[in-house]
């Protein structure tokens, strides 16, 4: 296809150069993407597509070009010159000087257009990939216009300019092995030891670049320094841009260069900090701190940052400091205090040792009186409070349990329980009462602190509070959901359910029973999901005993849960039914693993599930049923007849489902059966594991159960295949193969290939009787539904092969299977009879699975997205433009929208 594209390219270039209309505004970007891909793949565009060179010189010299085409050309030139060869060619043809000369575009009046400017920048960005480019960049004096563009009126241009400035410094910075001294001494570095590339694949430092790079660094540092000096609003915008650039640089530059840059701007930063604290400035200071924490000046900057008088800024700065994992003796403790201050004020716990007249405290208290700022401050405080709990205790302004109890108190305040609060902060308390946002943040914080040391001591308090939340009818469904999550986490922390008072356990059961009857389906769903999670969490009563499911925290254990979940199977909301099925699988999993005996109730329950699979009108419960059987099959210690029977039903019902996900899940179950059957063939299972990863859903990896073989090899293989046919695995895979949903067909196809490779040896290998025995294993192909599609495939393939004079008559697949006549007739008589019996192996080898998997692997829009299609579109749009045909034009327009 590539060749075909290259043939079309000259015409496309002509169309573009002529300024014809394009199919849509993304065409040029797509074209560039294709060129980039080719360049990355090692194609030399300059050599292989000379038309591009012509195109660039035509456009550059034309005065009337469309700005979009100009922008495209600028980017293209950069791309072409990104390799040294291309660069030389372009420089020789003097295109490069012209293209990257801003003066040329200004003269032509195109520089006003931001898309030309951005094309210029991006072209440069592509270009600056090798040392020659840097020399060119410096010699052509491009740094000045680039620095100017950093404050461009177009935000996109300004941002792109910052990006490229960062790129230059980062890309061309000396590799760590080259220099140990300051940047100014680079020229003294021993060039003979230069590696051809640095360890991170960047450009090695070469002599001719040294000077250029030093110049660039000097200019950029100077520029940054000047732009940061405060002065007026216009300057402020400039400073913001430079700060953003500094953040980029400080996080990615290596020591000598970074230090010198930092040295250059520290004074300006100090001055800036005096005027106003902005998020980029905060980022710069923190980035500086993380790279040079020992620098006294940086230390001083951080101190000033953390002594800002604006409460919200202080909170954000402290949070950012801790979030970056920065620690030092002075600032960490300061940050912890700043973050906990709102909690201190609102809860009235007064756990921070502070004077009530403290300035910070008063200004924060004033901010908390305002509803909107109060909610946002409290949420920031709560979201970041877990950061404090992991700090070294010496940094903490109070003990951990105080923080946990403050979070608990905050949750109590949110639900309107204000009795324990001093009257001083009633304004703030009033703001948080009933706020779901604060509730969720506090619950999240409570979840995070569950793993902190000392959390265990608070378990009872947390339980009591969460139960209150779960009992509160006014709670938002999302708050319920979060409360359940927190509860599960704390139950797993508690480890010893016997330490929870019986009354609390009883209350929890009561709440769960009530919530499963809630009017809101979201709450019912969360409750059912909670029960499933509870069953999955393992806890120990004591260190000696075996781990138990956490549902033992409920009086009656899992036996009290099961009826609740079974009731939920009748829920009118499909999500709840699906959750109930999953939760039941989780509660029953321990029994499966221990090989518990089947009870009458279990058999009846399985029948109910099968009914859900065939009768439920919604997809989610049906998917959950198949998942249930997958879990049962994969975790079961023994293969009961009920399991075998039901799996067969699931396969037949699931493969006939209308929901493609149910079908994919069914194929997953078929794969488990296949795995089990093939477990003796270790090589094939390995392959299976590698190939058949479900493309959309996370499916637990199969647990292989030991499979004993008593028979000899060949009979065993035939018997295995026979079993797979009987269990319906083969028909599920075949029906999946012709499914109209690509993921289903792809998965089925891959599994069929695995089956074919494992059990049906190729006909040319001489395996004697083994092959014959296996080949005799037959399959009854119905002449209806999906089977007709299979027959059609066989027929098409047969015809094609007949045309190639390779008749299938010679095939022995049908000789003994009474299929001969119909097959020889080219499958014309298929509609008459009921079923056809045929050899599985022959079927597998005749379906053309390998070609099919290739086709299926391609996304459904691969044709439309191909470069060829793009080029054709550009040509046809150009043609429509040159030969006006209103109808065609209309179609194109319609197509665009």
């Amino acid at each position, binding site marked *: 296809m590539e060749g075909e594209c290259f043939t079309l390219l000259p015409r496309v270039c002509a169309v573009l150069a002529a300024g014809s209309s394009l199919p849509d505004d993304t065409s040029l970007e797509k074209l560039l993407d294709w060129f980039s891909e080719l360049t990355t793949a090692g194609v030399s565009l300059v050599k292989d597509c000379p038309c591009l060179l012509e195109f660039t010189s035509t456009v550059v010299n034309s005065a009337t070009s469309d700005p979009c085409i100009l922008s495209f050309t600028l980017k293209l030139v950069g791309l072409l010159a990104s390799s040294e060869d291309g660069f030389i060619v372009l420089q020789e043809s003097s295109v490069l000087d012209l293209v990257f000369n801003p003066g040329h575009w200004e003269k032509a009046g195109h520089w006003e257009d931001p898309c030309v400017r951005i094309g210029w920048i991006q072209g440069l960005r592509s270009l600056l990939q090798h040392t020659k480019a840097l020399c060119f960049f410096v010699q052509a004096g491009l740094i000045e216009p680039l620095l100017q563009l950093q404050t461009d009126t177009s935000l996109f241009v300004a941002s792109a300019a910052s990006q490229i400035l960062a790129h230059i410094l980062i890309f061309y910075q000396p590799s760590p092995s080259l220099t140990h001294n300051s940047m100014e001494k680079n020229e003294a570095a021993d060039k003979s030891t230069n590696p051809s590339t640095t360890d991170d694949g960047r450009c090695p430092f070469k002599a001719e670049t040294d000077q250029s790079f030093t110049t660039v660094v000097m200019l950029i540092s100077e520029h940054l320094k000047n732009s940061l000096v405060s002065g007026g609003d216009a300057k402020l915008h400039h400073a913001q841009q430079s700060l953003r650039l500094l953040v980029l640089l400080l996080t990615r530059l290596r020591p000598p260069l970074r230090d010198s840059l930092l040295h250059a701007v520290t004074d300006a930063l100090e001055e800036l900090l005096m005027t106003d604290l902005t998020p980029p400035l905060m980022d710069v200071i923190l980035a500086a701190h993380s790279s040079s924490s020992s620098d006294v000046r940086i230390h001083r900057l951080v101190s000033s940052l953390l002594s800002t008088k604006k409460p919200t800024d202080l909170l954000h700065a402290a949070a950012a400091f801790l979030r970056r994992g920065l620690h030092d003796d002075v600032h960490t403790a300061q940050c912890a205090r700043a973050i906990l201050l709102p909690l201190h004020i609102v809860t009235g716990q007064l756990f921070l040792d502070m004077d009530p007249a403290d300035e910070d405290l008063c200004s924060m208290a004033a901010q908390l009186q305002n509803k909107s700022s109060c909610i946002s401050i409290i949420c920031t405080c709560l979201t970041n409070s877990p950061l404090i709990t992991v700090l070294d205790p010496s940094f903490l302004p109070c003990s951990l349990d105080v923080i946990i109890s403050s979070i608990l108190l905050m949750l109590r305040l949110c639900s309107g329980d*204000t009795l324990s609060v001093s009257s001083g902060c009633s304004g703030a308390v*009033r703001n948080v009462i009933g706020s779901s946002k604060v509730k969720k943040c506090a619950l999240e914080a409570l979840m995070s602190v569950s793993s902190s040391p000392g959390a265990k001591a608070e378990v009872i308090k947390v339980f009591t509070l969460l139960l209150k939340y779960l009992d509160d009818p006014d709670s938002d469904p999302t708050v319920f959901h979060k409360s359940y999550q927190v509860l599960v986490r704390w139950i797993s922390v508690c480890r010893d359910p016997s330490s929870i008072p019986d009354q609390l356990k009883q209350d929890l059961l009561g709440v769960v029973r009530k919530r499963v009857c809630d009017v809101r389906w979201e709450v019912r769903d969360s409750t059912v999901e909670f029960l499933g999670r509870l069953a999955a969490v393992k806890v120990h009563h004591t260190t000696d005993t075996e781990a138990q499911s956490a549902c033992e925290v409920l009086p009656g254990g899992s036996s009290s849960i099961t009826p609740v979940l079974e009731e939920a199977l009748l829920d009118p909301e499909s999500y709840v039914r699906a959750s109930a099925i999953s939760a039941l699988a989780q509660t029953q999993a321990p029994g499966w693993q221990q090989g518990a005996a089947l009870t009458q109730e279990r058999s009846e329950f399985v029948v109910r599930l099968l009914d859900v699979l065939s009768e439920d009108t919604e997809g989610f419960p049906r998917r959950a049923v198949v998942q249930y059987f997958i879990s049962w099959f994969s975790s079961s210690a023994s293969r009961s007849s009920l399991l075998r029977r039901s799996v067969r039903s699931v396969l037949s019902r699931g493969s006939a489902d209308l929901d493609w996900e149910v079908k994919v899940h069914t194929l997953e179950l078929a794969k488990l059966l296949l795995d089990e059957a093939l477990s003796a063939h270790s090589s094939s299972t390995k392959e299976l594991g590698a190939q058949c990863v479900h493309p959309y859903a996370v499916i637990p990896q199969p647990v292989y159960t030991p499979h004993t073989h008593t028979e000899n090899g060949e009979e065993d293989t035939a018997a295995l295949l026979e079993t797979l046919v009987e269990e319906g695995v083969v028909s599920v895979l075949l029906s999946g193969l012709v499914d109209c949903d690509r993921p289903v067909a792809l998965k089925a196809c891959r599994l069929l290939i695995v089956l074919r490779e494992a059990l049906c040896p190729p006909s040319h290998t001489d395996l004697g009787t083994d092959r014959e025995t296996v080949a005799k294993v037959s399959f009854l192909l119905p002449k209806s539904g999906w089977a007709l599609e299979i027959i059609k495939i066989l027929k098409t393939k047969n015809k094609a092969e007949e045309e190639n004079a390779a008749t299938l008559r010679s095939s022995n697949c049908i000789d003994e299977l009474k299929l001969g006549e119909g097959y020889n007739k080219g499958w014309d008589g298929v509609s008459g009879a009921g079923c056809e019996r045929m050899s599985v192996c022959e079927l597998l080898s005749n379906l053309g699975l390998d070609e099919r998997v290739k086709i299926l692997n391609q996304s459904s829009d691969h044709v439309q997205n191909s470069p060829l299609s793009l080029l054709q579109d550009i040509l046809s749009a150009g043609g429509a433009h040159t030969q006006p045909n209103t109808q065609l034009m209309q179609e194109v327009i319609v197509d665009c929208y």
Partner: protein
Amino acid sequence: MKLYCLSGHPTLPCNVLKFKSTTIMLDCALDTTSVLNYLPLPLVHSPRLSKLPGWISKDGTINLEKELKECAGRLFVDSQPEFCLPEKELLDLSTIDVILISNYHCMMALPYITEHTGFTGTVYATEPTLQIGRLLMEELVKFMERVPKAQSATCWKNKEIQRMLPGPLKDAVEVWTWKRCYSMQEVNSALSKVQLVGYSQKVELFGAVQISPLSSGYSLGSSNWIIQSHHEKVSYVSGSSLLTTHPQPMDQSSLKNSDVLILTGLTQMPTANPDGMLGEFCSNLAMTIRAGGNVLVPCYSSGVIYDLLECLYQFIDSANLGTTPFYFISPVANSSLEFSQIFAEWLCHNKQTKVYLPEPPFPHAELIQTNKLKHYPSIHGDFSSDFKQPCVVFTGHPSLRFGDVVHFMELWGKSNLNTIIFTEPDFSYLDALAPYQPLAMKCVYCPIDTRLNFHQVSKLLKEVQPLHVVCPDQYTQPPPSQSHRSDLMLELQPPPMPYRRCSVLNLPFRRCYERVYILPELANSLVPSELKPGVSVANVSAILHSKDNKHTLQSVPKAAPAPPSKKRKRVVEEPPVGGAPKPLLSGAVPLEPFLATLQKHGITEVKVEETTDGHILHLQAEDTLIQLEEDGTHIVCDNNEPLRTTIRDLVLRFLQKL
């Protein structure tokens, strides 16, 4: 303007407004919480209740064995329950001109007011209020009459004795005003005085004020009232709701620009959100039924029950309760369910549109059709043969002191499978349950009060902006049990005027204007002259005629030509009645031109002194003062009449004559 507060209960108001020359009673609700001090009235003989020990004081001096019984550590009066009436001594209730009823819960004391106080006025209410109010009264009377008690306990009310009783009887207030229930005859007589009104209908009261009911969104036919004269407007907001339930939504805009807004009937459960409570009600109900228990819902026979049934209608299927029978037992159950369906014009928009479809506005009709909901007048009769368990029973009275609910409490109280769900907020559920203790059945408190909460009312008041707000004392501070919840009170600027039982408030505004009509022929005779652009004035000579609080200016009848007589001369000497008055002057005397004019007339020695109101001109030579002020000019000139006249004429030159 005065407000007499006859009830201190914030949701059971009874106030009297004296406005202009009218005396208007605003609601006459009955405080039934007093019945909680009484023993329940069982429909069938209850051995448990009959065996309760009587009370004798510790020292044995007071023996009230027959009147007071002890049950689960509390004392109850063994007598027919009595209600706490509105205050009757504060003002003469016979002077009341009209009674305005806001909703059917606020009219239960009507017979006590209209029948025994000499009341001769009219009661105004909407039709659903009247009809459903009648049902509730009828139900109350039937509940009482079904279980007659000859005995009437009065000894315990003796102040000396009451003081020695244990709480809460000891703390009961106004016990001497407590009265037994009225009879059906009194109900009929009281209701015969009701005049029906529709929303926004304007009714004139003696020409002095106009009253008009507005939809309040709380219950079928519930209203707020506007009482206005030409220049004053008083709004009475009682039991309003902004939630979308069955009644017509609240009319807020008509409340704008009130001089005084009397605010009563806010939610009794400010922390219980009705939606949450409704959800809680459903989940507890489903949980009990699933566990094989019965659910008892003590409720009024109208109001929230419609919403409960509607909610259950949607919930039944989702909770798999399709086979569970729902019973509604009340002497007026049938009428209540049917009435609700016919008051189409009083329903919310959604339900109104259903009236034009072949389906009833409320879905309880479908529940009845499909036999999921059955209603009975009492537990006797058909109900006992249809009764199947587990089931859900809705029945009254929410106080658990009378009505069929008493029977179910005795029947189901012993099993912990059963649940009683309280939805009415009027009674403390713990007090209601007190005489049934010890109780095994589960109790759930889901008070559903759809009336305005503090957040909603603050928003409403911000929008309608009344000059003054009058409200019960309880709304001006947080609830005693949650003293830190400053969000659960009214915070207004200027602060609201609080009232409590027996308060008499002087409402803080004075009437400044009165409308006076002018007859066309008189108006026609006027000759207005323009004072300044847009303002014209004219002299009117007329006779002011006042009747029915309407004031009219009529032309002065022309004196009949007097017959010639000897007294003719005397008649002529008398100033003619209605003779042309002296012209009125307007305008101001400008200082400088006036000084110039004076100079022209030879008055030169003028000393001008500036005062707060104008100027004083001292004519030194003439020893005369001219005081030029904003609203008057005085010439002080002794014994020089010609000079005074000259100066007067000079002053008049600058003024306009009308």
